[in-house]
């Protein structure tokens, strides 16, 4: 690894940057965080992601990869023999993990954003939490969705785990109650408490304070 260059173009508060950072941490990949100013996009970002012009972008030995879901799978494959596997090797188990990661992104994360930024979908969001709760109950996955260790779904959920305080206290999102979704809420707690999450990602309080000031601008992006 000594002669490898791994740089991450990111924004500390970005939910998608957080997911990639966690994946890198899980694999113990040394990397350089290159904080971006998305209000004034630099030449490196525009050159590295000319199609979407967004963070995060991973630049590995000078070659850029964009889109967090693509980056995370790249990290898992490129450094297959380092750290824990992010996705299972079995094709069916892998398909299931990807399905639930996609569900979390579309229905839980984007669902929560709809409530806060478009003032719609609160009931849909709660219904989606119920669906995830049922999957956790049926499959007995604990403490993480990936079982004993964090997997792809947990990585995608880290954005919700860390941003939920912001979305609730500043954005007016209603989370399900502990009675309704005990496993789902326990999963978010477990992810928040994971040593790598605590040591490398922003705290819910820091995000909440940022969100309170940045909310109008973030709203304008949606």
């Amino acid at each position, binding site marked *: 690894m000594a002669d490898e260059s791994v740089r991450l173009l990111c924004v500390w508060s970005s939910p998608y940057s957080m997911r990639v950072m966690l994946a890198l941490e899980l694999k113990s990949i040394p990397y350089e965080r290159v904080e971006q100013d998305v209000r004034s996009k630099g030449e490196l970002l525009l050159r590295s992601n000319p199609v979407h012009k967004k963070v995060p972008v991973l630049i590995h030995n000078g070659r850029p*990869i964009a889109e967090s*879901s693509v980056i995370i799978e*790249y990290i898992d494959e490129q450094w297959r023999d380092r750290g824990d596997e992010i996705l299972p090797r079995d094709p069916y188990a*892998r398909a299931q993990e990807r399905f639930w990661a996609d569900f979390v992104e579309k229905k839980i994360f984007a669902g929560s954003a709809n409530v806060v930024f478009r003032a719609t979908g609160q009931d849909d969001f709660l219904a989606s939490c119920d669906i995830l709760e049922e999957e956790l109950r049926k499959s007995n996955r604990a403490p993480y969705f990936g079982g004993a260790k964090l997997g792809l779904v947990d990585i995608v959920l880290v954005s919700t785990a860390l941003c939920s305080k912001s979305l609730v206290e500043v954005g007016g999102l209603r989370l399900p109650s502990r009675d309704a979704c005990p496993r789902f809420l326990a999963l978010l707690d477990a992810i928040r408490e994971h040593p790598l999450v605590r040591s490398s990602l922003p705290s819910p309080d820091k995000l909440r304070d940022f969100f309170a000031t940045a909310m109008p601008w973030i709203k304008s992006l949606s």
Partner: protein
Amino acid sequence: MSKDSVKLLNFWPSMFGLRVHYALDLKGVSYDYQEERLLPNKSKELLEANPIYAKIPVLIHNGKPICESLIIVDYIDSVWPSPHKLLPEDPYEKAVARFWADFGDKKLFDAGSRLIRAMGEEHKKAGEDLKWALMKIDEALGTIAPGKPFFGGDAMNFADVALAPFICCFKAYQKVGGFVLPGPEEWPNLYKWVDAVNSVDAIKISTPSPDKVAEFAEVIRQRVIGTA
């Protein structure tokens, strides 16, 4: 060795379902096909196979369902790696293929769908977005595999399979969506890619006729206009 049971639940106009057809047909996997009539009610089998979304396509392999078209194609490629591997072995090339497949979902199919369903300003924007997306694909083909017909070089790969279903919709986008398609002088790589995809025998097996797709798009648009 017992035979694999492979079944595809789909609805013929679905571009997402067509991706699964292409993956199976390119690999010569035999499968049962079940046309799902989604209206007025979804079938019991579909609801059991995809209880979360109740959507097609669903692949049922030896009784186990797999949902979401790109997840299905990835699965097919893992279970039946040969012949015709769709995802490159090299992690970086794999990431490039995945990026363009994802681009298809986020920018191409979305714009196409809005072109058929939207009115007024939204419709105009959909046309602009579609043009931009096709331009990006033309550029990408020139960068990723210069001088070669496919994203995968000489043969279709994961990105080609993800984007190819779009080709049979061109007529619908023009006739029904009013989309004006720039010519090959403007998008040489895209046109070469379309010709190359259309000449692959496996692709011809399941692709619906562009006329039929245009007819179906007309029905959808009339429904939208009717409720406007």
